[in-house]
């Protein structure tokens, strides 16, 4: 309770409030720009936070996460191009509604649904993260190792890319994490005599490369895309009839989004897809979906925003990122010398609750900004791509350099960008690479500690109930889908025979 109130009191600091307002505005701009999303934005702005106090730095990153996720709806509704992948399903009904002259209503629905989803998920975050941390407090290295393996196995189910390719990308990230001095034995690995590599490959330059620079190369092939723009006259709040129609959808999607967000590695994109599909499944008028149904917008937006709070639960309580953007925030925590995990709620509880309250504040703030500023923010889509991406490159490179003031980090960012581009071209998602890089060190450390603890008999991990539970979850994450499809395929003919 003390930490709860201390976290709230942190918002009385005018400089933190000012930072949050700026970060929220920046996040909305980033989310509204096609090609940039919350993950890229957080990765690009992470170097700007290095001189800040940890609370301010992480609050800024979470503010960008929340507001950019919301802002993807602006371009989804007005130009039929989702600002972020999490808003892809918002296009399906938002744009048709805008085309029939109801852009303001569509944006109003998106803003209100996002706010409710975001606020509800932060409440869950405040309640669930300390409980989860308490449960994990007594985890020994074998349990942590099994949990980290489970977190990595969830990469297989990330929406973008195929399962086997996602796992390869994740394993590649883990491999990158082995570069540098081995913490257990002080042996140098893959440093090739470069002293700068002794501390390993930095998270930040790799993230700037795979999320920012690779996107520049992707955008280079989309220069001829012409987007239709809808002019909005005014934003208005949804009517009483709209609320009566969508409130169940908002609550359902908020619950779905929060739950999906809590699952390691899953994020707002998966949440919005499930939220939209469930909204359609439960609707009494499913035929209206795709033609401008208010429930379609509410289902997608409530789910994607509630996933932000959900994703922070495993990130802070276990040190396992709940989404790609949470992985960047996790990197930010590490850069600032903080150790996410169960001890955060015993040793740095005030810090954790300051972050929760900052997220709550930002979610409420973009209700105001979204309703009164969406028309203005929509204008950022007019920024020519020829201005935007050269500027993004400059920020990316300078940001990569700034953290350690090392040219090696610039080359790492550039190489990561090129590698990331070709990975995406060949169907590999870059998200697992980033998450693998972050979790790789922890994975090896926990494995080493487990081997010491279990007298080098690794199979004893399977005799520990909690470790076994996580390994079973891992097996389900890896093979459950195939088993389900096999089972489903076998059942289909039976079903048709029965009919």
């Amino acid at each position, binding site marked *: 309770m003390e930490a709860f109130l201390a976290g709230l009191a942190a918002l009385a600091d005018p400089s933190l409030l000012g930072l949050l307002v700026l970060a929220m505005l920046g996040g909305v701009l980033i989310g509204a720009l096609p090609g940039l999303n919350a993950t890229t934005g957080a990765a690009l702005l992470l170097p700007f936070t290095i001189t800040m106090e940890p609370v301010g730095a992480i609050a800024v990153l979470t503010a960008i996460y929340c507001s950019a996720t919301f802002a993807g709806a602006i371009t989804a509704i007005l130009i039929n191009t989702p600002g972020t992948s999490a808003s892809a399903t918002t296009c399906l009904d938002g744009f048709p509604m805008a085309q029939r002259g109801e852009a303001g209503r569509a944006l109003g629905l998106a803003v209100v649904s996002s706010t409710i989803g975001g606020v509800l998920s932060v409440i869950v975050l405040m309640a669930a993260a300390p409980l989860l941390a308490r449960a994990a407090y007594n985890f020994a290295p074998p349990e942590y190792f099994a949990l980290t393996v489970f977190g990595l196995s969830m990469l297989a189910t990330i929406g973008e890319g*195929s399962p086997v390719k996602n796992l390869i990308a994740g394993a590649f990230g883990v*491999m990158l994490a*082995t570069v540098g001095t081995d913490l*257990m*034995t002080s042996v140098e690995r893959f440093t090739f005599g470069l002293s700068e590599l002794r501390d390993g490959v930095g998270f930040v330059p790799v993230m700037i490369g795979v999320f920012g620079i690779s996107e520049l190369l992707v955008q*280079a092939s989309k220069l001829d895309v012409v987007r239709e723009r809808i002019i909005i006259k005014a934003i208005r709040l949804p009517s009483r009839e709209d609320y009566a129609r969508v409130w169940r959808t908002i609550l359902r999607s908020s619950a779905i989004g929060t739950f999906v967000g809590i699952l390691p590695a899953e994020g707002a994109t998966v949440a919005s897809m499930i939220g939209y599909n469930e909204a359609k499944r439960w609707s009494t008028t499913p035929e209206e979906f795709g033609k401008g149904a208010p429930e379609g917008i509410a289902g997608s937006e409530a789910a994607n925003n509630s996933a932000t709070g959900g994703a922070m639960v495993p990130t802070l309580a276990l040190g396992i990122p709940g989404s790609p953007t949470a992985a960047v925030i996790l990197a930010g925590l590490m850069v600032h010398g903080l150790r996410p995990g169960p001890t955060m709620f015993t040793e740095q509880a005030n810090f954790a609750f300051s972050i929760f309250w900052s997220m709550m504040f930002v979610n409420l703030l973009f209700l105001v900004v979204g309703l009164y500023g969406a028309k203005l923010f929509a204008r950022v889509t007019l920024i020519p791509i020829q201005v935007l991406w*050269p500027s993004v490159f400059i920020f990316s490179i300078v940001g990569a350099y700034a953290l350690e003031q090392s040219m090696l980090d610039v080359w790492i960012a550039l190489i990561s960008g090129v590698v990331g*581009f070709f990975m995406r071209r060949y169907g590999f998602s870059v998200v697992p690479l980033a998450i693998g890089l972050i979790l790789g060190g922890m994975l090896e450390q926990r494995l080493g500690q487990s081997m010491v603890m279990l007298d080098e008999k690794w199979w004893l991990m399977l005799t520990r109930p909690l470790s076994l539970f996580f390994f079973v979850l891992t097996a389900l994450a890896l093979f459950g889908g195939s088993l389900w499809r096999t089972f489903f395929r076998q059942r289909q003919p039976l079903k048709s025979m029965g009919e």
Partner: protein
Amino acid sequence: MQNKNEIHLERWLVPAVIVVLCAGAWWITTGFDRMPPILKRGIQPSDFPQLVAGLIILLTLLMAVIDPVQVADRVARKTWISLVLMGVFALVTLIDFFLALAVFAVTLALVWGERRKPILVLVGIVVPAGVFFLFDLGFRIRFPRGVLTSLWYG
């Protein structure tokens, strides 16, 4: 569109490159120092990288069979040019870091079809200079000395 031979090539080239890289990494790990049993902390320094490299090779072979790499289109010409410009950027950093950024930004904008002088001035001078002063004065970051930065640093 790419022709079938090129698609076929990438289907096998990508797994081959991954396997060769991992085999190379494995080979490098054989040169890592080994700890005597008394100093060993559960696993040898080479064990974990070897485990991961082996796993990647296995997954790649699986991928080549069940989910091969498929690409529909060639890499766009402007993407190749953008890649070359990144190489040019790397070379120009030898003269000056911010000169390299400015040259890259202007050339990229030109290649991507921008012809308006105010816009080119914006991306080639205003943005790099703004970012330089933001980081130099705001965050006290020292950039590598070069032809332009030395004018400021003296």
